[in-house]
């Protein structure tokens, strides 16, 4: 493969958006991939460097160059955006299909078709790029040609003009209004909390009646019924039984980690 797979003069914010300030120290060498807007764009650039008509590029060579690029980025411990890795995985699959004979009665599409589909996508992107350049190169209103600059004085007794608004103004107004309402209306659902005091009072009432080992949860059945309260009931009742045990009112036991906690009154 000719030259380094890494273009020397580039930096891509998209490609490296996940490499924040906490990027590994090892990535001191900055690889510049500016201008690449995603994996397809990178592939197109690599294809252009084959300096042949897109209709006659070697897809296999292109795949290898792309995989080498990703490999190099990995070697440099650069974090590539997910899109690039997804494409790399697909290209690795394509490469294996291109190199290995197709398994008998393979239900998937032929390797040649997959390669052609990729080449066709690249040709389409290149074509639209060329079209965009042609469009941008045209004489543009307000840049190259100009219309009447001044607003004309309204002729006397002119009828008022028709009302004008664009669809974009309309939907933007709706979105803005809904968004503002959303901000104005932030309501947090009230949290239902079972306090330590609640837990002690409830357990105190219940435990006094039993003197055999009983699962803590069986006392709490009625309180645990509401899924939203389950966490707070468990947390507060555990704290409460620990307190009761420290005060010598009850005994606690647990046979193994995560087994049910059992309690009985200390006096029995």
């Amino acid at each position, binding site marked *: 493969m000719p030259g380094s797979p890494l273009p020397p003069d580039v930096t891509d914010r998209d490609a490296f958006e996940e490499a924040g300030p906490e990027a590994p120290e090892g990535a001191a060498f900055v690889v510049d991939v500016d201008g690449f807007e995603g994996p397809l764009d990178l592939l197109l650039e690599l294809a252009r460097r084959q300096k042949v008509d897109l209709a006659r590029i070697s897809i296999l060579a292109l795949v290898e160059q792309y995989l080498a690029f990703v490999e190099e980025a990995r070697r440099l411990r650069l974090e590539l955006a997910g899109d690039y890795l997804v494409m790399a995985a697909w290209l690795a699959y394509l490469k294996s299909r291109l190199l290995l004979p197709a398994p008998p009665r393979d239900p998937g599409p032929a390797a040649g078709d997959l390669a052609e589909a990729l080449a066709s996508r690249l040709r389409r992107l290149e074509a639209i790029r060329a079209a965009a350049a042609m469009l941008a190169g045209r004489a543009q209103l307000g840049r190259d040609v*100009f*219309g*009447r*600059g*001044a*607003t*004309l004085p*309204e*002729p*006397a*007794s*002119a*009828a*008022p*003009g*028709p*009302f*004008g*608004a*664009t*669809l974009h*103004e*309309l*939907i*933007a*107004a*709706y*979105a*803005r*209004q*809904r*968004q503002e*309402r*959303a901000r*104005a*209306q*932030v*309501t947090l659902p009230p949290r239902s909390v079972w306090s330590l005091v609640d837990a002690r009072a409830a357990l105190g009432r219940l435990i006094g009646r039993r003197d055999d080992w009983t699962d803590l949860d069986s006392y709490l059945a009625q309180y645990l019924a509401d899924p939203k309260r389950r966490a707070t009931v468990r947390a507060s009742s555990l704290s409460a039984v620990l307190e009761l045990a420290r005060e010598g009112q009850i005994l606690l036991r647990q046979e193994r980690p995560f087994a049910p906690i059992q309690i009985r009154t200390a006096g029995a």
Partner: protein
Amino acid sequence: MSVARPARPPEPAPPDSVRLAEALIFCAPAPMTEADLAARLPPGTDVPALLAEIARTYAPRGITLARVAGGYAFRTAPDLAPCLRGASPEPRKLSRAALETLAIVAYHQPVTRAEIEEIRGVTTSKGSLDLLLETGWVRLRGRRRTPGRPVTYGTTPAFLDHFGLDAVSDLPGLDELKGLGLIEGRLPAGVRLRQPSDTAVPDEDPLAPGEDAAD
């Protein structure tokens, strides 16, 4: 009188300084003074003579060179004014409140005035709805079958026509507004965003004959 004379020779081109001066005056947002022109024309241009030449050329035409506010501008010939009155005046812009009210009518129709106020979170002036009725984009649809039987509002075919829609349901929904970057994040449950529709609804009665002319 026929104006098509195919054998007519092309017009002789005026000097470049005249062409440039014409273009400058035409595209300037305000009348151009002789000094403005002198600064943009080739050095040494006789600006007064050039303006006189342009004025003479355009004098018999539909567009003439006028001296206004200490400068020069192209204006339609004064004698044509009666024929131009009402010729495509600049469109009037809707206020933000009117645009928002229109959007709510479009997305939430059929909707009553009280509902519009509840959705917007502010009192909607009657003027805003009256203005929208005047645009021809909003209509009285019927009456809600609730106490007080309030009038419901909806959009008109002229609304669809103006905004290039085939149906109200073609208005973009939540996902599309998000995709366009117009809405960010999640909307709380209390803030409804409707997929609009303008079909008949069960709790609405049609207006009595002649009632739509009343309000």
